[in-house]
């Protein structure tokens, strides 16, 4: 979870980017831009506190996790913690808590909650002897008791922090996360208990045991007893434990199914169910080939990767040229035999190794020759060299699947870190980078990818491939889902909530993403484990009597120092980071096009719907989605020359997108993670429905009241007079506001602030928190969406895995759902434009916010203008309204006057509306006339420009390098019934009752807020529904929205829909090239 500070910071950064640069980035590498975004090391002062706070929050939520410790995980932890001084241990536990926990179900068994770690480490003496499987109950208890300490500290920290406005929010969010995690774990625990499969205590007692044979990468067999109903995770963690492997997320267990196809063992499911009637025979393999192996933390991980690659090469799966065979072979020799020894190593020593599918004498000679030149290289160094060369091979990490294209031509589908490659024979004939892919699905034996439309194209296209059978189709689909999630998302996507009529597999990758695993491995600080390099891939002739060559890693001592150092660094940063598993790479998933695409259909649908109802609607449109702004932005660029320079240097510095950025990320300042967390979701749609019922004859009045909340929701905050707002109301307000705040926040990082200012600071906090945890600060009513959503989603996930159907499934790679996407700050291209004006301050950190607020307060009027993160900017806008922003009359002055002004009307006119989004403008076009006809208030088209970023300029502390490159689209559309309006009301009206109901269904979370107001002797009931639709970009949204509206109407037939606000947030990822 993120702190607001984090998110804001993100936003601010964005503007810096000049279009050019964006382009460059895109060209250079799709993935590149994304990772960057997360990276900023911005020191977040609060982090520490947050971190401490987490455990506290978590604890109350669920004490369970401790009670179901997984033996394997603990053992490992012990290993690490053993070497730490106690104070380190504690810290570590804090920091680690998130990464460990969050990985979710799959990890749970292996990864005991962090708190345990502390205990475990300390208790280690006692437990150590116990062997792998069983942990003594005593130890567990100890652990728990130990936990108390940090917890208490956390509480203190929390208290101390609470004074600050923003702080609570963060805590809440984090707490939220924790809770989720905890819940998951609880669930897990229960499941485990039920099945008894994973429960360590029961192993070996009641349950039937089965011996699994796992073939390790060095060719050896590892027999492992597991309980018959154990899940994949259990076995996997046993194997990793055996290997002493910590960076295990790159690996997996595979087995051959009945058709002799290689399948990955799903850690979250029972082994037995997966292998069906096959043997309990598995192979330990690399599942995700890290694009830059030098980023791996430990030598042992690299060693295992080397072993896998040697296997791949000698088997021919990874083709390479003669020269490369020779070179890689020579490194293999150096790693396994050490320096070439002319006495000992006659030529035939080489024959024991297999370097190539077909090994010639010539090759061996060449290998030997090269081997001599590696003198002095340690095994670890040789491995690194090996990997550096191997990673450049074009087929490195490409998982190939046979298929036919639509014309029946035999092709190969290659799934890799960057996307999907299409090969015909050895030729690459097409490539779909992840950002290009909107949806992956399979149906029977067909596998489909939906492609984002290109620049020139209007519509997305779907490409279909025919797989040999439906299992193969599913396998490809799964691999795609997993690779996309692992390499491109920050955190695993939650399985979508059940939608209407959703059939098929809900499978999602539930392990850690690469971003997460990197974060986690940054925390590794154990002395490099000792391991033996056995000669790995020998040709068959070596079987008899070949000397067992093993070279202990001499390097490791030498390296250890280095490693330790690295570890320390990593740890530090990690500690500060609230190492949330979810954080780092949100950016990646974001796709520019997507938002636009999905948005388009949605709008029309909505309109239609509304129109059908026969209501007058006027659309107030603020459009934040700008896809092709490049040209216009160039001007902006000039202004930002310095910024862009910095960025450029950054880009140059990081030619290889992923790795470098990750590096930076890892080493980045603590703030980074928080910020990143904020971005959890790539795309989110918010829709608010306001139903208002007028009980009185005076419609107008009622109207006004009804209208007001919505207004507040939108930019119109100013309209609400502070006085009128009563604390009581604040609740309801909050709801609406929170929605809107979120919207606004999405739009312009600081909108919320503005609104809040008028009322109370407290509220603001709430609002910010609202998503994740309103309940805490706000009160039960307010909360809703986020909190509930998240846990549920997870629940579903665990449940869903079983429910998948073999027949078909869909996966929308783009969206990553995160609970509080609302706070994500989006970077819009447009932002940049404004940036020039606005650049003043975006407050990335919370502290900064304060000043801003003050400013805001100073001029309530401007608040309405909104959406400018920067007050300054706002002022500018007002002044300049002519060119950029049209300020509607009401907005400014009337901070207090309620209606009369059509709040929604005020608009900011953006410079190039048309250019920006055809759809939007189009919509406007249609609507605008209507609006004008029906409603008195002139409607001005608004394009809101969000300036999220800015951050760069002001924040000196933030390294430019870390500036995240995230593009986000935010779109807000308001449909408002034309009101007879006028309402006049200066009269505030008295709030009679207010209550909130939250319900969830489908993919939506509906928060219903009912307020009764007494105004001028008339009572008005106003129902506000906030519907949060999270998830896919596609049509689902429209449907869901339409459905929601319909339902709302059905539920309250006597009421009319007065306003629909659609707020859509999409995070853009750079298209590659």
């Amino acid at each position, binding site marked *: 979870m993120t702190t607001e500070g984090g998110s804001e910071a993100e936003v601010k950064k964005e503007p810096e980017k000049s279009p050019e640069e964006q382009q460059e980035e895109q*060209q*250079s*590498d799709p993935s590149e831009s994304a990772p960057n975004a997360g990276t900023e090391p911005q020191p977040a002062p609060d982090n520490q506190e947050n971190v401490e706070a987490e455990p506290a929050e978590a604890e109350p939520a669920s004490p369970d996790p401790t009670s179901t410790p997984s033996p394997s995980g603990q053992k490992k932890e012990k290993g690490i913690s053993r070497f730490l001084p106690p104070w380190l241990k504690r810290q570590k536990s804090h920091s680690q808590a998130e990464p460990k926990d969050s990985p979710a179900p799959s990890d749970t068994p292996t990864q005991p909650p962090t708190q345990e770690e502390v205990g475990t480490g300390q208790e280690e003496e006692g437990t150590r002897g116990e062997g792998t499987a069983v942990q003594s109950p005593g130890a567990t208890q100890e652990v728990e008791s130990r936990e108390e300490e940090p917890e208490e500290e956390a509480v203190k920290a929390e208290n101390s922090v609470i004074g600050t406005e923003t702080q609570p929010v963060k805590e809440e969010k984090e707490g939220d996360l924790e809770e989720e995690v905890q819940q998951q774990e609880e669930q897990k625990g229960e499941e485990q208990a039920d099945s008894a499969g994973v429960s360590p205590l029961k192993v070996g007692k009641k349950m039937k045991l089965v011996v699994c044979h796992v073939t390790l990468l060095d060719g050896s067999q590892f027999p492992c007893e597991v309980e018959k109903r154990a899940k994949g995770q259990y076995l996997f963690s046993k194997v990793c434990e055996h290997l002493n492997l910590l960076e295990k997320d790159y690996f997996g267990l595979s087995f051959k199914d009945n058709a002799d196809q290689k399948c990955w063992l799903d850690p979250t499911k029972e082994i037995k169910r997966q292998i069906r009637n096959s043997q309990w025979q598995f192979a330990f393999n690399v599942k995700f080939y890290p694009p830059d192996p030098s980023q791996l933390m430990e030598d042992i991980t690299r060693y295992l990767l080397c072993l896998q690659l040697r296997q791949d090469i000698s088997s021919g799966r990874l*083709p*390479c*040229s*003669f*020269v*490369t065979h*020779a*070179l890689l072979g020579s490194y293999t020799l150096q790693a396994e035999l050490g320096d070439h020894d002319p006495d000992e190593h006659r030529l035939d020593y080489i024959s024991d190794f297999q370097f190539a599918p077909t090994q010639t004498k010539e090759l061996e000679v060449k290998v030997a020759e*090269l081997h001599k*030149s590696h003198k002095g290289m340690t095994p670890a160094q040789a491995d690194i*060299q090996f990997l550096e*060369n191997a990673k*450049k*091979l*074009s087929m490195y990490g490409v998982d190939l699947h046979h298929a036919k294209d639509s014309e029946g031509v035999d092709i190969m589908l290659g799934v890799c870190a*960057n996307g999907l490659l299409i090969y*015909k*024979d*050895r*030729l*690459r*004939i*097409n*490539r779909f980078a992840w950002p*290009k892919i909107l949806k992956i699905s399979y149906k029977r034996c067909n596998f489909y990818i939906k492609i984002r439309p*290109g620049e020139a194209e209007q519509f997305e296209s779907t490409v279909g491939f025919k797989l040999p059978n439906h299992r193969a189709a599913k396998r490809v689909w799964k691999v795609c889902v997993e690779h996309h999630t692992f390499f491109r998302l920050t955190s695993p996507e939650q399985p979508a909530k059940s939608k209407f009529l959703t059939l098929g597999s809900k499978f999602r990758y539930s392990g850690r993403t690469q971003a997460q695993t990197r974060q986690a491995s940054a925390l590794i600080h154990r002395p490099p484990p000792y391991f033996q390099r056995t000669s790995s891939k020998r040709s068959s002739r070596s079987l008899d009597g070949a000397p067992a060559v093993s070279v202990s890693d001499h390097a490791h001592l030498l390296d250890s120092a280095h490693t330790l150092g690295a570890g320390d660094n990593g740890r530090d940063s990690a500690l500060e980071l609230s190492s949330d598993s979810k954080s780092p790479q949100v950016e990646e998933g974001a796709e520019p096009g997507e938002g636009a695409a999905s948005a388009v259909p949605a709008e029309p649908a909505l309109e239609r719907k509304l129109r059908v109802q026969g209501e007058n609607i006027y659309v107030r449109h603020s459009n934040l989605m700008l896809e092709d702004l490049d040209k216009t932005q160039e001007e902006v660029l000039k202004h930002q020359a310095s910024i862009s320079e910095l960025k450029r240097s950054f880009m140059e510095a990081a*030619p290889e997108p992923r790795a470098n950025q990750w590096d930076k990320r890892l080493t980045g300042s603590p703030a980074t993670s928080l910020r990143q967390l904020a971005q959890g979701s790539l795309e989110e749609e918010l829709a608010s429905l306001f139903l208002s019922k007028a009980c009185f004859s005076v419609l107008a009045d009622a109207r006004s009241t009804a209208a007001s909340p919505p207004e507040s929701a939108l930019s119109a905050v100013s309209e609400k007079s502070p006085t009128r707002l009563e604390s009581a109301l604040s609740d309801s307000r909050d709801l609406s506001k929170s929605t809107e705040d979120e919207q606004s926040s999405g739009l312009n990082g600081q909108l919320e602030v503005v609104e809040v200012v008028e009322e109370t600071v407290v509220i603001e906090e709430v609002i910010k928190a609202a998503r994740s945890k309103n309940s805490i600060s706000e009160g039960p009513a307010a909360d809703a969406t986020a909190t509930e959503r998240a846990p549920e989603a997870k629940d579903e996930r665990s449940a869903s895995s079983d429910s998948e159907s073999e027949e078909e499934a869909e996966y929308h790679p783009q969206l990553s759902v995160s609970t509080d996407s609302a706070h994500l700050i989006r970077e819009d291209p447009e932002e940049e434009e404004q940036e020039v004006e606005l650049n003043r301050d975006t407050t990335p950190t919370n502290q900064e916010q304060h000043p801003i607020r003050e400013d805001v307060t100073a001029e309530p009027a401007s608040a309405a203008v909104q959406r400018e993160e920067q007050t300054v900017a706002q002022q500018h806008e007002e002044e300049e309204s002519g060119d950029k922003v049209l300020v509607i009359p009401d907005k400014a002055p009337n901070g207090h006057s309620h209606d009369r002004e059509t709040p929604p009307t005020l608009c900011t006119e953006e410079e190039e509306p048309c250019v920006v989004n055809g759809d939007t403008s189009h919509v406007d076009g249609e609507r605008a006339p209507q609006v004008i006809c029906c409603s008195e208030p002139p409607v001005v088209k608004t394009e809101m420009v969000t300036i999220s970023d800015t951050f760069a300029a002001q924040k000196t502390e933030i390294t430019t390098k870390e500036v995240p490159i995230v593009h986000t689209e935010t779109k807000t559309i308001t449909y408002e019934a034309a009101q007879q309006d006028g309402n006049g009301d200066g009269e505030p009206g008295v709030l009679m009752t207010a209550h909130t109901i939250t319900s969830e269904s489908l993919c939506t979370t509906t928060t219903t807020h009912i307020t009764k107001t007494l105004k001028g002797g008339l009572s008005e009931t106003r129902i506000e529904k906030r519907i949060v639709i999270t998830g896919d970009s596609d049509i689902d949204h429209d449907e869901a929205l339409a459905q929601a509206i319909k339902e709302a109407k059905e539920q309250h037939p006597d009421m009319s829909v007065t306003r629909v606000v659609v707020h859509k947030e999409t995070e853009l990822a750079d298209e590659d*090239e």
Partner: protein
Amino acid sequence: MASVCPYGAFTHAIVRGIPESFGKPAEGGEAIETDMARAQRQFGVLMGALRQKVGLQLMEIPADAEFPESWRIEDVAVIQGDTALITRPFKEQRRAEAEALRQVLSELNMNVVEMGVEEGGSGGATLEGSDVLFTGKEFFVGISKHTNHRGAEVLADTFRDFAVSTVPVCGGSRLKNICSMGGPETIIFSNSEGAKKTLRMMEQLTDNHYDVLSVPETVAANCVYVRSPAKVDFLLHPTVDECPDSIAVFQKLPDYTLLPTACSEASKLGGALSSFCLLINRKFNYF
């Protein structure tokens, strides 16, 4: 990869003289009017630039009147690292042109792979070097009337370390007519519509980043880039007369030594600067 080093570090160039039959159609088609003397002059200038200015070791294969197109030596081999793939040109009679080349290659200790030997020979594989763009990181093979998929497959099989992508050739008869390397990570591209189409395809297919230098005249899209051992960037490009509008674009290249080199006669026959030479790096190192 041993062989992966930035594009452009060449040490040798193999060229082949202009035969007397220059301009005569190989197969009795219509002759195009060319100025042989001028062609030879231009060829001489090119050789001089490569040898004296750029500092490459030049190996010249004598012209053979029997092969009117033998000056297009680029077509008959694709060389990367220490491996040379002798191609199988589309025109039957051109396939013998490689004979003289083989000797030179073996003198250079190149690992020579014969496309004809591969099963592609019988499988109808055709490939001409002017349809192959090697960027230092990967190959693009233009599918044209001279080059087919089979040929590209053989190439992919020969240079296994690299991704080999096939792209349609639009806006020119050969891939190298519309694009060429202008630096280690720079591709010079014609900005004609067809070329853009090819460019888009390349962009979609690649994992790597390239800067694209877009030139207004198609003829300017074929240049020869060499990074000399002294680390100087040389770009041989058509002269002002041939591409008046593109010169300014070339001048944008930072710190480049531009060597305007005429090839107007070759252009008449569909050739270009790169057609004249095979560039080789014999000093590649493994580490």
